[in-house]
């Protein structure tokens, strides 16, 4: 089967290129890139005015299967990923049961092979049951396909346990993904400590509760030599700490989420639980510092922290509702609207932050747009008008912090191994 993508703007951050070209894909592999190409038979798709990116990957997705299939499944979550322009997602292990041994990793791998519309890379738990007390079977999980390890949702509160985990992970050169939250400072906080916690009478979750853990884990990475990836950084000081650590040569990487980049605590004018996330929305100054971190290379990846939740749980009182917003279907549109259309990021930067950068963080197979490479490709229509509505999602959940927003640009096609997962903006169910 052959496919010709005609007249797209082909972006490849590994070469820094951004130029109009034709791409020929045959049997799932890119075979030719050039001008005025034709194919004798097969499908030709005119993608002029569209941007062709190496397939996007999300480092931080909650697929909820097994355990909360009412909120998301591997099928619905990967459909949401395809719709958002991702060719791969990394699945967090805080399922029920927790993904903390090889057979549970294998379950995710096998389910994804059967049902997934995009690639799924499982992340294993660092400690058994993510309880922070005893190492999980990291070697076993790695052998079954876990690409990184995380107790996401929690910090490993004991520094001694965190050190043991990092020491152990180092033998595999595996990455520890750290959710930075000192709960002795943050609990029972539900919003940023400061103006909003005072005004709404809600318990505050101070920025320092994240920053002390960022500082600790950077220091433990230096001590152990383990690669540490800091998830969903939300504060200006956290970004400063990573910047300083990178300058010293510490093996630390970090991600930021679209909601922390494009929303701040000022959005919390009432008690909308779709704006309740962990870490919480911070100040406008923090938000600007995160964007600076994207621009200067401190931040390695934009990751969604896609966290689907059942409506009957999100409709509880603010203090009782679960943390999290969905994100797979809005991330690319938000990045385009706020950073590309405004001239702050180039498409090469987007490819760096949403494709090559995150892949390097977890050591995932590289994805490039050149002959001989597997065709994992995201096609973006940068002019598409997007209205985010509660009924517009293909995710099984609709708890988006961005409902009601009008955005610019979205994925029109997604190719995974040469097969369409998204075509003409519609998810293609295989």
């Amino acid at each position, binding site marked *: 089967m052959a496919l010709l993508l005609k007249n797209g703007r082909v972006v490849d951050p590994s070469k820094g290129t951004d130029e109009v070209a034709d791409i020929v894909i045959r049997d799932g592999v890119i075979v030719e890139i050039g001008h005025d190409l034709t194919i004798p038979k097969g499908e030709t798709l005119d993608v002029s005015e569209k941007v062709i990116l190496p397939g996007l990957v999300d480092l931080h997705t909650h697929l909820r299967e097994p355990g909360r299939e009412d909120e998301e499944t591997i099928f619905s979550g990967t459909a949401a990923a395809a719709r958002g322009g991702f060719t791969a997602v990394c699945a967090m292990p805080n399922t029920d049961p927790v993904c903390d041994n090889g057979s549970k990793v294998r379950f995710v791998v096998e389910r994804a092979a059967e049902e997934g519309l995009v690639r799924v890379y499982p992340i294993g738990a660092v400690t058994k049951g993510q309880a922070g007390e005893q190492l999980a079977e990291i070697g076993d999980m790695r052998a079954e396909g876990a690409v990184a390890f995380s107790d996401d949702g929690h910090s490993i509160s004991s520094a001694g346990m965190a050190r043991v985990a990092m020491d152990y992970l180092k033998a595999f050169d595996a990455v520890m993904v750290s959710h930075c939250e000192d709960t002795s400072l943050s609990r029972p906080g539900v919003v940023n*400590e*400061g*103006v909003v*916690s*005072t*005004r*709404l*009478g*809600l*318990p*505050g979750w*101070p920025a320092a509760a994240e920053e002390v853990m960022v500082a600790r884990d950077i220091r433990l990475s230096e001590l152990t030599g383990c690669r540490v990836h800091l998830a969903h950084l939300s504060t200006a000081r956290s970004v400063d700490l990573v910047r300083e650590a990178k300058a010293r040569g510490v093996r630390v990487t970090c991600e930021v989420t679209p909601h922390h980049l494009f929303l701040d605590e000022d959005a919390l004018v*009432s*008690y909308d639980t779709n704006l309740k996330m962990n870490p919480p929305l911070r100040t406008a100054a923090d938000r600007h510092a995160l964007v600076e971190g994207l621009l200067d290379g401190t931040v390695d990846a934009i990751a969604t922290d896609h966290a689907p939740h059942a409506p*009957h749980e999100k*409709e*509880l*009182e*603010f*203090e*009782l509702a679960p943390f999290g917003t969905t994100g797979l279907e809005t991330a690319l549109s938000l990045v385009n609207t706020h950073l590309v259309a405004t001239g702050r990021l180039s498409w090469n930067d987007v490819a760096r932050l949403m494709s090559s950068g995150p892949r390097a963080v977890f050591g995932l197979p590289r994805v490039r747009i050149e002959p001989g490479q597997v065709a994992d490709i995201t096609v973006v229509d940068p002019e598409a008008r997007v209205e985010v509505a509660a009924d517009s999602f293909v995710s099984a959940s609709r708890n988006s912090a961005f409902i009601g927003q009008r955005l610019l640009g979205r994925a029109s096609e997604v190719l995974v191994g040469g097969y369409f997962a998204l075509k003409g903006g519609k998810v293609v169910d295989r």
Partner: protein
Amino acid sequence: MLSCRHIMTMSDLDADDIISILDTADSFSEVNERRIKKLPTLRGRTVVNLFLEPSTRTRTSFELAAKRLSADAINFSASASATVKGESLRDTARTLSAMACDLVIVRHRYAGAPHMLAECMDAHIINGGDGIHEHPTQALLDLFTMRRTLGRLEGLTVGIIGDIAHSRVAGSLVPALRTVGATPVVIGPPTLMPARPDVLGADVAYSLDEALPTLDVAYMLRVQFERADAMPFPSNREYARLYGMNASRMASAKPEMIVMHPGPMNRGVEISADVADSPRSVVLDQVNAGVAVRMAVMYLLLGGEDSGAAA
């Protein structure tokens, strides 16, 4: 008539609303002195006391206010309701809405509960205390008591002393005082302060003794901490020494300064018995004002609508 449909936070009320409530409460206060204390004003209207956390004083005050206006007052409390069986607040609200009640007073341990009710039902909502957020009718009855006792509100300096961080009373009283032209000063150890007292509109002092001579009102908050870990102060004894109101401290206050307390009092902790029982304590006046002020807000929220033949 008020400028708002609900009283969920003090920000729903402007200065004219507050004065209108206090003036109306003045006239109801006279009714409360009569032998027959009942008016037909809200006959046929249904008022629901939705109290989802234990409360006797506030619930009783609202119930009495509703009954004195001849409304049908129904108590829907947590222990006797579906909420203990796990019905969500939204479903409770929809259930009450289906029963066509006119006014719901809600007390809940979580902030934002009144907003949630307002989204789900047609009735008027009065916040009877939500989490550590606000308790607007308490602030209104406090203003009423201050105005009655001191003759004015504008220009008063009101010290609010104690656990500001966890006090819904302070959450409403501070902005209420600002709205009427008084100066709220929150006084307590930093461990009991909200993150940003300035957002509420309060000046901040850590020393009661330093602030005391400037105060026209000393508003003592109830101190209640049962936790052993991370206690925000070392002991009740030390708290009383630094922040408790007692006779010797009263000696360095202005002679006309009054002492207030939202109740229930911890005698010997935030207030000594001799001060609590002294003529400068207006604690029982506050309780008395509570009924009149709550009659006023019910009347002003409901009376403006078609109040029927009984009005």
